[in-house]
């Protein structure tokens, strides 16, 4: 019934998870992974509904990625599949609030943060892809490419500046350095890598 699905977990992800557990304990890791699972489950459900096959699942330092033969999807369909992840997070936050009545604030918060983070209009994230798909759908792929690039660069640069500012003002918090590096990479990335990955 289900097509064979290749699951790959990168060494970087294992290292990151190990560090996270050392720094914060098991509980937040479970919370984060739970929220991530909800997110990916949202994507997966919509992809299944649209009849696309999920061919692989990759866990890396940068997050989880579902591999799919999205070539057959329409712009609208792909847009829906992309937005399904954050939507699943938002719905699960609402559901948890309604059912648990504030008993698991951390899970609600993790879902909300993951939702907001993924909606940033930076390309590898859902927000960036949604922006590209929407613009490409309405004004053509070239316009979509330009819009996604500029939005990604500006947002990532702003994010990097914000993180840099936080590090500067608190005089430490080196755990934010990878985030700063990611922000800088994202802001410069699309201009180096040519068309797009």
């Amino acid at each position, binding site marked *: 019934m289900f097509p064979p699905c290749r699951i790959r977990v990168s060494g970087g992800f294992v290292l990151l998870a190990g560090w996270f557990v050392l720094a*914060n304990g098991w509980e937040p890791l479970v*919370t984060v992974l739970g929220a991530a699972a909800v997110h990916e489950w949202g994507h997966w459900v919509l992809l299944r509904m649209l009849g696309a096959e999920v061919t692989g699942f990759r866990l890396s330092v940068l997050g989880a990625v579902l591999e799919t033969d999205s070539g057959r999807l329409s712009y609208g369909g792909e847009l829906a599949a992309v937005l399904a992840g954050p939507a699943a997070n938002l719905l699960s936050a609402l559901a948890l609030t309604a059912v648990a009545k504030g008993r698991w604030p951390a*899970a609600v918060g993790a879902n909300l943060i993951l939702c*907001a983070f993924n909606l940033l209009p930076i390309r590898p994230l859902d927000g960036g892809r949604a922006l590209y798909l929407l613009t490409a759908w309405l004004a053509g792929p070239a316009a979509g490419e330009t819009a996604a690039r500029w939005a990604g660069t500006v947002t990532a640069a702003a994010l990097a500046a914000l993180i840099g500012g936080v590090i500067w003002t608190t005089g430490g*918090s080196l755990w934010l350095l990878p985030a700063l590096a990611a922000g800088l990479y994202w802001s410069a990335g699309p201009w180096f890598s040519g068309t797009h990955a």
Partner: protein
Amino acid sequence: MTSRQAGRRLMHARARRRSAQSVRSGARKSEPLTAKDLRLMLRLVACGVIFVALVAAKLLLPARMADFNQQLSAAMERNMDVQAVFSAVGRAFSREEGSGVAEVYEAVFHPQAEATQTGATLPEADLPEKMTTQTPKLQDGAALDLLRSFRAVPETSAPTPETEAQSASNLAYVLYSQENLPEGVSMEQAILGFDYCAPVVGTLSSDFGYREHPTEGEERFHYGVDLAADVGTEVRCFADGTVTAVGDSSSYGRYCVVAHEGGYSTLYAHCSRITASSGTAVNRGQKIAEVGETGMATGPHLHFELQREGSYLNPVYYVSAL
């Protein structure tokens, strides 16, 4: 050894992969490196360079590296509580759910102690607030470090100019917040409301605050100032008052306590002899004792403390030391 082994293993793996690839692509042995191999090689070279550079830095500049290591680990420890951030966002969201727009507005624009900004903004946006809870600890450590660094000056060189001692005490005043002081200590510069004079005109040899104990060798709070002077130098009363105690203790040596108006009292310790007797009224500037090195002292000096209703004040503001 291990790194070399790892390197060899990596090389081996690469060689194996390349051979597998070349077999797959038709055994072209003389072909230049593929892009993938080149990337792998570059990665290996970069790792090697970083490794060698770090080892070289550690061997060549051990003190600098130890210092850097300490700074780095201190900065790393200033971490955020991920669970707390999640919880704060979650609670803000839950509160939002149960109530109207007014409360949402309040949660976002007037964040209380717990409520951080909602997840509607960037996830990083609610981090700075978490930081503020960490900063007192940070200041504490920094203050202590700074104090340790300047404290060494008046101790090693005996004739310290007044300006330096004064600036040091001012620095202490700025650095100390109420949180990292021992109980019953106030760094405020109280306005006494009566005339006073320095009990001894001498060198300030030890300041009010944390210091390494001269005989015990550990970090302790010094509740007074030490004014170095020759044995027999007269100790004059700080202000008008009544002698409430004259005594001899293993740590203070021969000492006396004078009560002044407004709940203030002063203590004069390590004296060679006390000339005033308990219960008598004394005037400002009157000789009450002579400088000595009785009790736990490493040289002749007057240990002078100033208290207001049981809490210790920094006497340095009222003592014009040389």
